[in-house]
């Protein structure tokens, strides 16, 4: 009778690795228990000193680390149970069908890694009052992410190594390669412009891992498979280093951020600084920091902007010219905002040449425009409540005076929470000065794209806390979100990219050296 090798090998592997399976599942259960406990811990609630040990503060982190390690261990053990490396393996001279062998290994991983993981995640969602059936797609997506971002690659490495020690050594080499590439990139980087990673690169990388697995199981061509992995690492390193060196020219940036003369999304004007308050920030790393305060106006009421980057050109009256490279940024500009700051660094020797007289500063500012969609007013209630399109929340007054939320599978793709400072219903601290009306605070919550965020727990805790600076007390404060505080919620969407050119004449760089803030 022809045997179903898949099930036969699968049963054998269970008999062989039942202890490892039990340990992995026990860790998963421990993770679930600790995760549930962590949901109620708000932002800022951190134990210190001996409390770290007494409260088991280290335990969640330890389990978070050990759980994937147990999966890695299980996957490596199952693959290397019928090792594909070497010439002494018992099974290579037995009538194994390689496709059925591979299927048996895949079945094992699905049954004892993915399935328990999936079930525990479904339980956690249910426990957090999110019905798992409504989030099936996200739960499956999470499993797929783990499979394609980790398990496939781990399996590929396990097929070209004949022991856990060898696999760990291979992992170490890969980590060193990544560190080296990163270090090299940061040394030779010419600009901060970073190209986005296309999805097909991920597909290519995964394709190589799958190819390695298939080559090993069908032909056991270990040398070829190892070279495939080395080649891929070398290619990725080369591309990473080359792209960090690449400086996009201005024309390509303008193509991405087209100018729209006469229809700029924002109007900016240089504000002269006659007061020179605050201490000059010292020169560091041979670079002088320049800070140009600008007035802001003209932003449409239902939109806001993110400054993605700037290019600055400084020209003196005698023709000396200095160009900065693309400088990445991430400042936000809102309709209620009156001022902003444009900052950049100049090498000291260049600064010394430019400071002697006034310069003309030409800015190219690259903005991403956002439209405020689905705006709704929301009054924070007492107790637990559902925040629309977000999750379950409650106010937290012990540590941060904000909102502590639990979201199913992912934080909102983009949630903007705004509030007039003066409308906070939290009792102000005695040293806090009352806030004037019309000054808005904004807090973003941005999640990863896709039906689920990468991670283990399907329940994503996050906090919404407004941050502000108390000038009189010279410290950060949170105006607070308490029951009764009115909020404006919206889900901004990208409406386009725009470039804005701005010229400022007769700028004295000495006047605009960056200083530590002295007060409003």
């Amino acid at each position, binding site marked *: 009778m022809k*045997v179903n*090798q898949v099930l036969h090998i699968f049963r*054998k592997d269970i008999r*062989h690795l039942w202890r490892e399976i039990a340990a992995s599942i026990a860790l998963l259960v421990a993770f679930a228990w600790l995760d549930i406990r962590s949901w109620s811990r708000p932002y800022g609630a951190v134990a210190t000193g001996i409390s770290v040990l007494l409260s088991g503060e280290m335990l969640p982190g330890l389990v978070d680390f050990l759980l994937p390690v147990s999966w890695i261990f299980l996957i490596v053990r199952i693959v290397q149970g019928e090792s594909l490396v*070497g010439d002494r393996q*018992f099974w290579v*001279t*037995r*009538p194994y069908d390689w496709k059925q062998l591979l299927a048996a290994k895949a079945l094992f991983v699905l049954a004892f890694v993915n399935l328990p993981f999936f079930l525990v995640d479904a339980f956690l969602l249910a426990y957090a009052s999110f019905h798992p059936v409504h989030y099936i797609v996200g739960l499956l997506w999470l499993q797929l992410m783990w499979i394609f971002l980790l398990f496939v690659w781990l399996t590929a490495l396990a097929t070209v190594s004949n022991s856990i020690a060898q696999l760990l050594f291979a992992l170490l080499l890969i980590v060193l390669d990544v560190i080296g590439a990163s270090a090299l990139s940061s040394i030779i980087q010419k600009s901060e412009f970073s190209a986005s990673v296309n999805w097909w690169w991920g597909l290519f990388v995964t394709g190589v891992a799958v190819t390695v697995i298939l080559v090993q199981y069908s032909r056991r061509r270990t040398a070829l498979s190892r070279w495939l992995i080395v080649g891929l690492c070398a290619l990725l390193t080369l591309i990473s280093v080359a792209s960090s060196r690449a400086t996009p020219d201005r024309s390509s940036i303008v193509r991405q951020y087209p100018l729209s003369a006469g229809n700029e999304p924002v109007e900016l004007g240089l504000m002269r600084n006659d007061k020179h308050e605050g201490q000059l920030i010292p020169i560091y790393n041979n670079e002088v920091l320049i800070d140009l305060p600008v007035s802001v106006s003209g932003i449409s009421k239902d939109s806001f902007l993110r400054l993605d980057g700037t290019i600055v050109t400084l020209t003196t009256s005698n023709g000396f010219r200095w160009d900065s490279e693309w400088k990445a940024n991430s400042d936000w500009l809102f309709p209620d905002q009156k001022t902003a700051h444009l900052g950049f660094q100049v090498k000291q020797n260049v600064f010394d040449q430019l400071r002697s007289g006034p310069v003309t500063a030409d800015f190219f500012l690259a903005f991403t425009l956002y439209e405020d969609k689905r705006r709704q007013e929301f009054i924070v209630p007492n107790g637990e409540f559902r925040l629309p399109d977000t999750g379950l929340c409650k106010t937290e007054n012990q540590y941060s005076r904000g909102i502590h939320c639990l979201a199913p599978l992912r934080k909102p793709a983009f949630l903007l929470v705004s509030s007039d400072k003066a409308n906070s219903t939290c009792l102000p601290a005695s040293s806090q000065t009352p806030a004037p009306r019309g000054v808005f605070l904004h807090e973003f919550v941005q999640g990863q794209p896709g039906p689920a965020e990468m991670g283990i727990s399907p329940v994503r805790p996050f906090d919404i806390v407004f941050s502000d600076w108390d000038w009189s007390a010279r410290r950060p404060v949170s105006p607070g979100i308490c029951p009764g505080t009115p909020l404006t919620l919206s889900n901004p969407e990208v409406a386009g990219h725009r470039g804005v050119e701005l010229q400022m004449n007769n700028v004295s760089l000495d006047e605009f050296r960056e200083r530590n803030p002295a007060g409003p």
Partner: protein
Amino acid sequence: MTSAIQTDHLAKKFRRVEALQGLTLDVPQAAVYALVGPNGAGKTTAIKILMNIFRSSSGRAQVLGIDSSHIRGRHLESIGYVSENQEMPEWMTVGALLSYLRPFYPAWDHALEAALIKQFELPLDRKLRHLSRGMRMKAALASSLAYHPRLIVLDEPFTGLDPLVRDELIHGLLDRAEESTIFVSSHDLAEIETFASHVAYLEAGKLRFSEELSSLVERFREVELTFDVPPALPQPSPENWMQLSAAAAVVRFTESRFDPDRTTAEVRRVFPEPRNIAFSPMSLRSIFLAMAKSGRNSA
């Protein structure tokens, strides 16, 4: 198909080392074919190419009519393989190993399995890691014989085993000899001599000869000639005479193409007046030593 195994100028190179050079041999069906040679001769390399564990650098090999580079999966249902350095699943008991392998082979014979367990006295409930070397080899052999393989390949199966265990293994093999071709490698000539029907000698990756053991033993003799006065040794000596030497009035050599009449006539032609001519049969070990020392190919 008359040959169980055929190779044609099979070669294998590991970096700069030529482990096999132009190996051409033919293993008839139902033979007990011994591949012998010193350590490092290339015996294991040859076997691993036949079992598609290694890829050859050049040349071809066929096993049971199939190109050896295509041997995999279902082809292995007809081949049993036991090697001295094979990594067995140490965590399994003997019984678990046999139970696990059983479904892989459609021709598995439960009665034969039971007979082998009894013959080899295998402890079914003991883990393989707790078995002695000899017991482990017997377990491996039982798991490779129970399905009536057409070809049994053994790579140094007797290394490190005591004579009793060797005897048990040989008997276990010989019981299957009628239905299987046996291909065994060894550097233990004394054991091979007791059961092989064919022998091939491999040295430094090259095949020195390959023939039936009976004809090999038949054509080699130690020859001792006694004279009244010490004779002059012929220069050159006949090609088929190896290790020609003289001690006083006695001349000795190894004859590699022995025939009573022809050899006697040749002796008398070279040495006209020997007082006495004595022919003695040689063991396999003596034959190989003579060949190795003479550095000549007797084929």
